[in-house]
């Protein structure tokens, strides 16, 4: 009896350590028990946020989290696969528009946005599949990928900006030119918030609701842990090898182009999720999402935190989004302060602020461990 109890405990502990091993691995910051403790505190704190944040603060925090998906999507493709995409905004925007248009047309009829969600997720992946096939199989590399992806997103921006006319209806949805999708006139429908479920049991996730916040938080947590698992798997070690040297990796039997394409599609899916959540959050989307600003911003966030780590990218993004907003409230010239901080970090901590600080702590703790020995 006592014996079997012990065996169960040992088994449980072994399972727990296996899960931790799978998530920790070589490729990510934070392998220690201390990290996971701090991580748990942060997660619990975030889930408890509705208890101590005002409605407006919570709405704002939800928006921070939506940016987090965009950062993770860029971190995956740039930090782990070595492909700098300046078109993550295109995937975000395309998903947002596709979900919005489908939602406007299907919401009344279906009573939910299940199909709109699926359409919203598939559309950016299709774009990534087409664009990625062309780029990777034609051996487009480095800065040309950045230029090409930026070009594509700007094409979308230009196209959507000229859809203000009466002719630009997709079913019941008016594309609305630079106003985008949203209730800008009484007779125009706005894209619905996510409403998931079947028949009568439909759960709505309005941007202001707690439900939306909890859903976004949970999705971000799952995405982060899922990507952590992916980059620490054997597939992840191949990804990093491709980042380090694609030709060499191909000589070890890996179809580099196919792997790059798959990761590009996954990255588009995550950026797309960000776009759908954004539309669900604010019930509008404009062509600005495809613009230069929205495509460069994630690059700054991810570079600031540390592009080679999901944790650093996500943490850096949250910090920068918060900081830029906090500074903007203080003064009109806050952007100068922000600029100085960004330039200082890029020059002094080229691997990213959080990555370099984590590295420093790691070295320091190892040295003190050696002293103790």
């Amino acid at each position, binding site marked *: 009896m006592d014996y079997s109890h012990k065996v169960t405990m040992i088994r449980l502990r072994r399972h727990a350590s296996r899960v931790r091993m799978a998530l920790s691995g*070589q490729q990510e910051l934070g392998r220690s028990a201390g990290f996971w403790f701090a991580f748990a505190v942060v997660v619990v704190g975030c889930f408890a946020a509705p208890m101590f944040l005002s409605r407006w603060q919570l709405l704002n925090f939800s928006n921070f989290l939506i940016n987090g998906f965009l950062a993770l999507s860029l971190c995956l493709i740039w930090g782990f696969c070595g492909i700098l995409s300046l078109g993550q905004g295109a995937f975000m925007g395309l998903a947002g528009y596709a979900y919005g248009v489908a939602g406007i047309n299907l919401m009344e009829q279906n009573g939910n946005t299940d199909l709109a969600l699926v359409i919203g997720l598939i559309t950016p992946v299709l774009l990534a599949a087409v664009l990625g096939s062309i780029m990777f199989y034609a051996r487009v590399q480095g800065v040309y990928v950045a230029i090409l992806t930026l070009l594509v997103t700007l094409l979308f921006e230009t196209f959507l900006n000229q859809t203000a006319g009466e002719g630009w209806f997709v079913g019941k949805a008016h594309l609305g030119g630079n106003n985008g999708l949203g209730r800008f006139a009484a007779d125009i429908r706005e894209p619905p918030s996510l409403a998931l479920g079947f028949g009568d049991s439909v759960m709505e996730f309005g941007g202001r609701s707690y439900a939306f916040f909890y859903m976004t938080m949970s999705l971000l947590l799952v995405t982060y842990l899922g990507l952590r698992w992916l980059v620490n798997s*054997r*597939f992840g*070690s*191949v990804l*990093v*090898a491709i980042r*380090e*040297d694609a*030709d*060499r*990796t*191909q*000589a*070890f*039997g*890996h*179809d*580099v182009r196919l792997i790059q394409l798959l990761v590009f599609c996954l990255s588009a899916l995550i950026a797309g999720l960000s776009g759908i959540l954004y539309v669900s959050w604010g019930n509008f989307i404009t062509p600005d999402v495809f613009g230069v600003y929205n495509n460069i911003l994630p690059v700054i966030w991810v570079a600031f935190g540390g592009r080679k780590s999901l944790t650093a990218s996500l943490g850096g993004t949250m910090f920068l989004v918060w900081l830029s907003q906090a500074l903007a409230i203080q003064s009109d010239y806050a952007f100068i302060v922000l600029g100085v901080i960004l330039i200082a970090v890029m020059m002094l901590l080229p691997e990213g602020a959080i990555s370099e600080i984590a590295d420093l702590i790691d070295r320091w703790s190892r040295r003190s461990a050696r002293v103790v020995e």
Partner: protein
Amino acid sequence: MMATASPDSLLEVRGLSKAFGGVRATNDINLSLRSGELRCIIGPNGAGKSTLFKLLMGMIMPDSGTVVFEGKDVTRAQPHRRARMGIGIKLQNMGAYPNLTVRHNMLVPLHHERAGQDPDLQIRQLLQPLRLDGKSDRLVSSLAHGERQWLAIGMALAMRPRLLLLDEPTAGMDPEETHATCELIRSLNAEGMTVLVTEHDMAFVRQLQSRITVMHFGAVLAEGSLVDIEQHAEVRRIYLGHGTPRRLLQPRGARDLRSSAENG
């Protein structure tokens, strides 16, 4: 498909040519390797040895000619396909990944192994004869030069290739390491692996005791045993100018060979 191929032929290269701009890096190369053969390619820098290896691996595509591996035409096949078919390579300037750990490096070629096998056990088994046991968690950039070369060979071996291509495996090694590398290659060959190796170091070539192919200006100049090569008039003229055959036997670097070729 190759009428001339003998039944135990592993690799048949016919008329392989590649030009970069106006420079013919390889010119009408013919090469045939039996299964289980050990072959050494020698030639001065710029003779086209590395280009030939890249052509054999599919990292660059030839302008003309064919590569047949195990009876299959792989001339247009991508590198990863050839790797999976059983060609392993260690290129001269493309060894291990410097910014990754030894273990991580080994995981990259081991990726295709069946699930359920413990990768760490396999890594230990592969690293042990390469004197890298216990260095699994070291960054490659912190390893000695010789160790890095051995790791690169270990990574090629992790693919369990039937044809192993080694481009200057002893570059930068001291004589003791060079000797050990030679013994490693000989033992791999003794176990049945077909090995094609390029080399500058004539002491190594002597120790290897393999059949030799001499390349010069992108073409095959001569082929035969070490004795045949040493007595080959054209080889002596190009390599040694008016020198004696003994100079060929000296463990000299590439620069000596090239400068004597240019002078001669």
